[in-house]
């Protein structure tokens, strides 16, 4: 009986593979339309059925936060959709900004049994 329950649980919880993708691996920082501000373009692909929101962050080599601007820090990406994200960093922070990351946000009342948060960090090209 116990074995049957375990098999059933495994089957129920592993039915759908759900993935998170953040590209490119090494994005470039290029001059934006604002003087003194650099821009990078990244793409987020959400194949996680249990996640609709992702948080964008820019960090230094020690994973300490670096100031940045983005249209929305927490973005809504529907299931099986891609979203292009423009991330802006001050030119004076060019050397400090090392990683640009997207992290899944789990809703407290989503009703899912999500046990896994995913975080993918790309590294700015030098």
């Amino acid at each position, binding site marked *: 009986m*116990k074995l049957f*329950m*375990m098999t059933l*649980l*495994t089957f129920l*919880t*592993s039915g759908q*593979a*759900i*993935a*998170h*993708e*953040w*590209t*490119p*691996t*090494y994005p470039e920082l290029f001059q934006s339309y604002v003087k003194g501000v650099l821009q990078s373009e990244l793409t987020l692909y959400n*194949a*996680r059925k*249990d996640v609709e929101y992702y948080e964008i962050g820019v960090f230094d080599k020690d994973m300490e936060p670096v100031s940045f601007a983005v249209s929305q820090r927490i973005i809504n990406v529907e299931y099986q959709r891609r979203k292009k994200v423009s991330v802006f960093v001050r030119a004076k922070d060019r050397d400090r900004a090392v*990683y640009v990351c997207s992290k899944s946000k*789990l809703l*407290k009342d989503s009703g*899912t*049994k*999500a*046990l*896994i*948060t*995913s*975080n*993918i*960090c*790309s*590294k700015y090209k030098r």
Partner: protein
Amino acid sequence: MLKKVLPVVLMGLMSSAVAAEIPIVGTVESKCVITTDTQGVYGNPTPSKLTTNMSDGGVPPIVRYDVIQADYYKALISHPETFTESPALGDVVNWVGLVEVAEVSDASMSAYDNDKRLYNNVTEIDLTIAGSTWFKVTSTANYGYDKAFPAGQYRATVQAECIAI
């Protein structure tokens, strides 16, 4: 004469339209994809213990890492050290966790288990081989000194990170 030639010309034009080719374009680029293979469930074998161990009625969460190119990323997997949702707990919860390679797409990836670095609740692995690796996370929470967990819903999260090197 025209009546005989015209249909032949029209058919020729139609056949060239049917033979049009539709291109499908794709790019394979360096990337890391984190896939939640199995969500994970806590079993409650004794009143004071919650565990994802299969022998205790739990299901360990499994995360799959896909990397297109070797040596571009490292994986950081953190097992839980706190509940994200639980009833009010008046005593200490002692956490134990373990991250292991469960399945591999390339036999040499099994070396990840020996090469992994452990600190705090984090397991760090350099993804030195292109392909897919499945990591199994075992998490156990013991409440106080053999105290019974209060009834209610419990939830904790494993953090799976993929950092470009």
